[in-house]
């Protein structure tokens, strides 16, 4: 089975109105080449799930700046003034989620769980509209799973079967997102032969990856 595709080939999967997860933390570990291709394709009304909206000219921030996004589910928008501007103008919906809760909601879907119970957000606006559950005398918020149509992740080394290894902090949300979408596309900085990544160094196992795109540095 050949999972390696060109960027043009995978663009056929990207459509208006989809929910897409992007790995990356302030664009470190984001599949920049695929983001650029989506900007070029110009699909609209996307819902983006990512840690943050990065920068106007970097990471998923480029999609926001190009007005292709109707909603973001993120923990932070402060580094991209365009997200704030569109939010204040009523052009984009912003769901702010505490970073650890965002990670667990994604992980929950990928792990087949119906949600997670977390103390984070109790007594704050995050609690509004949510169920509070008491377990052994301690209160928790019920946070529901998050899924996407597509997860676009970025691997530092990806073997031809789709096993992924991440360099340093480029890992962040990528491994959990690879478990929480119908279709998983990995942009590889480097594509290597099967076996070059030792089995115990594989972070995202190949069974979770549908397609591999060669991206290169950046």
């Amino acid at each position, binding site marked *: 089975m050949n999972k390696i595709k060109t960027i043009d080939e995978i663009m056929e999967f990207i459509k208006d109105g989809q929910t897409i997860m992007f790995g990356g*933390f*302030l*664009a*470190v*570990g984001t599949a920049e080449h695929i983001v650029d291709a989506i900007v070029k394709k110009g699909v609209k009304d996307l819902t983006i799930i990512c*840690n*943050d909206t990065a920068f106007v000219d970097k990471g998923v921030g480029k999609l926001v700046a190009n007005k292709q996004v109707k909603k973001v589910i*993120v*923990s*932070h*928008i*402060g*580094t991209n003034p365009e997200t*704030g501007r569109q*939010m204040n103008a009523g052009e984009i919906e*912003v769901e*702010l989620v*505490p*970073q*650890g*809760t*965002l*990670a*667990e909601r*994604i*992980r929950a879907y990928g792990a087949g769980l119906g949600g997670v119970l*977390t*103390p*984070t*957000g*109790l*007594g*704050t*606006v*995050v609690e509004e509209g949510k169920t509070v559950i008491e377990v052994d005398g301690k209160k928790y918020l019920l946070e529901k799973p998050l899924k996407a149509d597509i997860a676009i992740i970025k691997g*530092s080394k990806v073997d031809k079967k789709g096993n992924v290894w*991440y*360099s*340093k*902090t*480029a*890992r*962040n*949300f*990528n*491994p*959990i997102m690879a478990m929480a979408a119908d279709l998983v596309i990995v942009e590889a900085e480097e594509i290597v032969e099967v076996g070059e990544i030792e089995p115990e160094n594989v*972070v995202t196992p190949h069974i979770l990856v549908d397609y591999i795109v060669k991206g290169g*540095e*950046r």
Partner: protein
Amino acid sequence: MIDKNLVREIIAKRVAKEFKDGDVVNLGIGLPTEVANYIDKDVEVILQSENGFIGLGPAPEEGKEDKDLVNAGGKYVTIMPGGACFDSAMSFAIIRGGHVDATVLGALQVDEEGNLANWMIPGKMVPGMGGAMDLVVGAKKVIVAMEHTAKGAPKILKRCTLPLTAAKEVNLIVTEMGVIEVTDKGLVLKEIAPNTTVEEVIAATEANLIIANDLKVMEL
């Protein structure tokens, strides 16, 4: 009025004295980051960076930046020998699960109950909470490091008026005027800066302050 840089240095220096050998600590962006510069060389503190590693080191030399190695503020950093990288779920399991001894954060407001507001000003500034809500709930000790007032207006209040980051989680407040502990009875002024009077601290604080019987001068 004292110099802003000196104010930050006083706060960072005093916070650095809170840690003991082996502590795992997460430092917030801005002033809290500067705390790392003043930790005693004999005290090994392991810094956690919520974007996914422990063993956060100083900024790299120019030209030696690694595009895949940044801190939670997106700045290039280094990783100490023995450091370890992990994904965001693991990072926050470490934070939420009580494996971080202390977190140091800035604040817009903090109050008598230990409530903290530091993530938004409605209608003005809505950057998002990032990892702050999880850090404040999960860390064993929550240290607020901030200037005592904002343009002369108190930031230590009877009740926070801004949206909270977390309820009743703050343990210690360190400012350039003193060190305040959050207790069941209220805020206790434990230490006071040199050349500062108790009256001056009270005047700059909206919250009621209990003055510790053994009030000390801040060690810097």
